[in-house]
């Protein structure tokens, strides 16, 4: 017997070795989230509590959940929350008209300073997402205060309960203060609710297994580099779907994001629109729908008076600043911005020239073009753009696949550039080429 055969790991052993602990860890993570959220929901459901007690309950369960997950790093989040609340109150006393601008600026500066001066990059990688969600909530509160949406300034318990709400303080998604407040008052209980929780749990664990075990395995390392890039990017996307469905799970289990007749109306991401994308613009929209709404509502709309292009530019800038001063994320976001800008314009020109339904966003009602969306020409053109988008996604997503130490402590400039260099900066070249075509058309 050849010695090699003896230790060759067969597929099944490999998969079971990876799947089992993955599922276990996924469930362990879900357990904490489910526990605190169900605790919150059942208390609200069965005990008639006054307004402020409900909010403080949300605050307490949220802090408990966060502490359980990140340990003492929670003080960074607490600091951010109390600091911003103090600032908002002080600014309200001075009757400042531009509270939101000051607050947003301070918070973003704080996040950047954290990134530079927090000594332990591992810890920063761990709490970055949490800080980002908190920052988004704080900025939205500040802006809504400026827009006079609330009758008076939030009290500390409401504010803390909103920021630390266990349903979305860890993985998001962002939700507005009004919908948070409303959901805390609503009482409901139905059988469907349990099945929604179960479905989301199964969904998120499946995405986790796909991301950890199945996708890294199904394309081998000695395949062409674009296939490997596609695989790595897909593993990253699956990880994102895992996080998104886990966040839906936590929202639903706390009773948020449900319609009156007990259907889940909350959508964080749409895997089908991203895996087979129509355009990069759609990917940007469906990647994280609440985040997109937040950017649209609070950043884009605020800066719209200064012109469309400026507003888009500022939106991208804010989005990347919220992610921190990280070269990789900024590069990816900036690339997505320019890629989708070029694509959007090129497609509208092509649609005009060939009279074909191939805009970046599908025509909503009656399409005015000569060739409708099911015509052969439209299908061909749209498929070409789909392929280009899939390639862009592989190109942009590949850098999130890295050795664990890199993942844990953040991506460097060199890491990003080496990944792109390996693919010969192909997507950037292609976009330049597309832009030239656009200019010549």
């Amino acid at each position, binding site marked *: *017997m050849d*010695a090699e055969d*003896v*230790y060759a*790991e067969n*597929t099944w*052993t490999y998969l*079971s*070795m*990876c799947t*089992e*602990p*993955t*599922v*276990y*860890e*996924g469930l*362990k*993570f879900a357990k904490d989230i489910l526990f605190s959220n169900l605790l919150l929901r059942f208390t609200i459901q069965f005990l008639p509590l006054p307004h402020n007690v409900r909010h403080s309950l949300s605050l307490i369960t949220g802090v408990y959940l966060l502490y359980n*997950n*990140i*340990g*003492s*790093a929670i003080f960074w989040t607490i600091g951010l929350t109390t600091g911003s609340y103090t600032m908002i109150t002080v600014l309200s006393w001075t009757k400042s008209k531009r509270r939101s601008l000051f607050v947003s600026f301070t918070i973003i500066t704080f996040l950047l300073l954290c990134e530079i001066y927090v000594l*332990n990059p*591992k*810890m920063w*990688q*761990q*709490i*970055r*997402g*949490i800080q*980002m*969600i908190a920052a988004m909530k704080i900025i939205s509160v500040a802006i809504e205060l400026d827009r006079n949406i609330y009758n008076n300034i939030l009290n500390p318990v409401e504010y803390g309960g909103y920021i630390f709400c266990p349903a979305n303080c*860890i*993985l*998001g998604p962002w939700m507005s203060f009004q919908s948070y407040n409303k959901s805390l008052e609503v009482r409901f209980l139905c059988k469907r609710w349990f099945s929604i929780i179960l479905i989301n749990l199964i969904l998120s664990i499946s995405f*986790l297994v796909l*991301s*950890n075990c199945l996708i890294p395995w*199904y394309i081998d390392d000695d395949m062409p580099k674009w296939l490997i890039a596609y695989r790595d990017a897909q593993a*990253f996307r699956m*990880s*994102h779907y*895992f*996080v998104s469905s886990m966040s839906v799970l936590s929202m639903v289990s706390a009773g948020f994001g449900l319609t009156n007749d007990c259907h889940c109306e909350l959508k964080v991401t749409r895997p089908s629109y991203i895996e087979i994308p129509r355009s990069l613009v759609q990917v940007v929209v469906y990647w*994280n729908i609440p985040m997109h709404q937040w950017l649209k509502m609070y950043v884009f709309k605020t800066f719209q008076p200064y012109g469309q292009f400026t507003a888009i530019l500022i939106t991208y800038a804010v989005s990347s600043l919220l*992610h921190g001063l990280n070269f*990789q*994320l900024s590069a990816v976001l900036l690339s997505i911005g320019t890629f989708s800008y070029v694509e959007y314009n090129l497609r509208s020109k092509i649609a005009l020239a060939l009279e074909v339904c191939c805009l970046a966003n599908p025509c909503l009602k009656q399409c005015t073009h000569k060739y409708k969306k099911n015509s052969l020409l439209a299908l061909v053109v749209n498929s070409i753009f789909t392929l280009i988008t899939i390639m862009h996604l592989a190109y942009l997503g590949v850098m*999130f696949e890295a050795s*664990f130490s890199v*993942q*844990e402590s953040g*991506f460097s400039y060199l890491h990003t550039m080496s990944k792109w260099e390996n693919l010969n900066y192909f997507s950037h070249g292609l976009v330049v080429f597309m832009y030239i075509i656009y200019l010549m058309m």
Partner: protein
Amino acid sequence: MKCLWLLVITVLCLRCDTAGTKPRRGRGSMWWGIAKAGEPNNLSPVSPGVLFMDPAVHATLRRKQRRLARENPGVLAAVAKAQYAFAECQHQFKYRRWNCSTRNFLRGKNLFGKIVDRGCRETAFIYAITSAGVTHSLARACREASIESCTCDYSHRPRAAQNPVGGRANVRVWKWGGCSDNIGFGFRFSREFVDTGERGKTLREKMNLHNNEAGRRHVQTEMKQECKCHGMSGSCTVKTCWMRLPSFRSVGDSLKDRFDGASRVMLSKADVETPAQRNEAAPHRVPRKDRYRFQLRPHNPDHKSPGVKDLVYLESSPGFCEKNPRLGIPGTHGRACNDTSIGVDGCDLMCCGRGYKTNTMFVVERCNCTFHWCCEVKCKLCRTEKVVHTCL
């Protein structure tokens, strides 16, 4: 009958004992026999019941080992599977004068020939790799849930948790979850099973214990932790990790490195004196935990004393050139060698200067293999001419 057999072995050992150290160690390594017993078709290693019942297998085990096998159904099959340690040993020593050849003795002790009676490097390697094989195989069997008594140790913490490295208070140390490759079970059980009979009293028993432990340590330290981060936009809010056993090839490679740098030892002064004192105080046995707490002293006082992962030996190796029935050495007659190499696999060294003959033969082997997606490898059969050199 058994006693008689034992007596014969003992007498033989005493007779072939030339170096003066007493190599008598009971039947500690007899279990090697069951690993070999799984091979012929009279036994099927996959059905543990059959394996356990077989009297031939039974006879190779000590009483304690039999008890362990009885209490932990499925363990014997896993130990029997550890025969890949023999294959690994043969792979590592393919190009050396001593090539780790085994014979078809059901009696485990004689599996590697009488070389194990000598406390030399080769013996050290045999002990280490077989003990590593059992650890590896048991850890794997535990994951595959073929051992009933091995439950997943969910509370277990990985080694990283014990190290202060990276363990800043505000970053929670990842806890080992899941059942992936339960090294803890393999390690503990291997200590119980493999080290039965090595009481650690004589120098030779200490050598065996040390080498067995070294083999296990190699498996343990080469466990890999694979992790992945999940969180919003590439952050690391959730970490998922799993432990992964090393391939046995890498264990064999590192043990081979230690073989090349093995240290010759003698008992340290303190240890020479303690057994006598201990015998007065506690005449029966050394407490089990204490069994592993001894320090061997390098033979050459200028050398460093051996670490836990180092292999140790007591006496220099015999020559492996000529047939030596007294030591069970087959010699290198008829071994294949490489005429262009100047290393140990070269014909000059391998044949010990006796010269070699060259034959040309045709072999049919697989070639031009192509990978078809997914997942098939197709090969052609080619007839190639091969020049084979064999020692005279």
